[in-house]
């Protein structure tokens, strides 16, 4: 019985290590490199009309069932939340790249 208990608790400890030990680590924690993160989250569009891009972003978020939380034309950001038994928050930014493109970055 004792042996079983030791094995079981060892297994438990092993499983628990998958969880974080110090939650403070999360402040600066990233799972991918900075460049990689940006690559995954960003797409370029062939337009210079940033305002129109932001309006399209808002319309798309609404199509996906989001309610907009914040929008800022100066900064080029839009945030929204989707509630459907879960809560999903997303921020999209649009900024110009070069003279012909607009970069759109979505973060969840």
């Amino acid at each position, binding site marked *: 019985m004792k042996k079983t208990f030791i094995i079981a608790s060892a297994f438990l400890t092993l499983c*628990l290590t998958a969880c974080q030990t110090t939650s403070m680590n999360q402040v600066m924690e990233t799972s991918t490199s900075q460049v990689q993160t940006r690559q995954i989250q960003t797409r370029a569009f062939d337009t210079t009309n940033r305002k129109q891009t*932001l309006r399209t972003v*808002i*319309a798309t978020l609404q199509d996906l069932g989001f309610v907009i939380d914040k929008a800022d034309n100066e900064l080029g950001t839009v945030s929204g939340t989707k509630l459907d038994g879960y809560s999903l928050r997303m921020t999209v930014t649009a900024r110009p790249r070069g003279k012909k493109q607009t970069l759109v970055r979505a973060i969840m």
Partner: protein
Amino acid sequence: MRQKHFSTLCVCILAMLLTACNQTIPKQALQLSQESMTLRQLQTRSFNTSNEKKLLTSGAGVLQDLGFNIDESETSLGVIVGSKDRDATEAGQIAGAVAMAVLFGVYMPTDKNQKIRASLITRPTGKNKTNLRITLQRVVWNTQGQISKTQSIVEPEIYQEFFSKLSKAVFLEANEI
């Protein structure tokens, strides 16, 4: 012997459950559903005006008529966000909870408060045409302060009522009443 195995199994299952720390968001969360087109039609009305600002002001007015507070606005993008805190008590739920308490002596938390959020977006779609789309959602807390519901509001009647109020407001403001 059998008991030993059983206890080991129990502890292992518990451990496995604990490792699933994070709440998961379904993979299809960002896929357009079949209802999304219907929802868009339900939530959108087109107005014969090129005056986006005026339409936005009317929309804000209706939100305020309905008791919403304006949380955020960006007129250059045609965005207004509002919310209101309301009671969420439902008679049916209370009756159920009372029945449970009487029959089984179990306390069942019931819905208590809710926060209703609205985002109202205007968008010029052509010459003399502006679209207005409103999306609504709510979060409900129970008597123990836990979140019991997080949902988008998709009831057609609610949107129909909003737009009938909006038409009225647009009319009143156009005629300066």
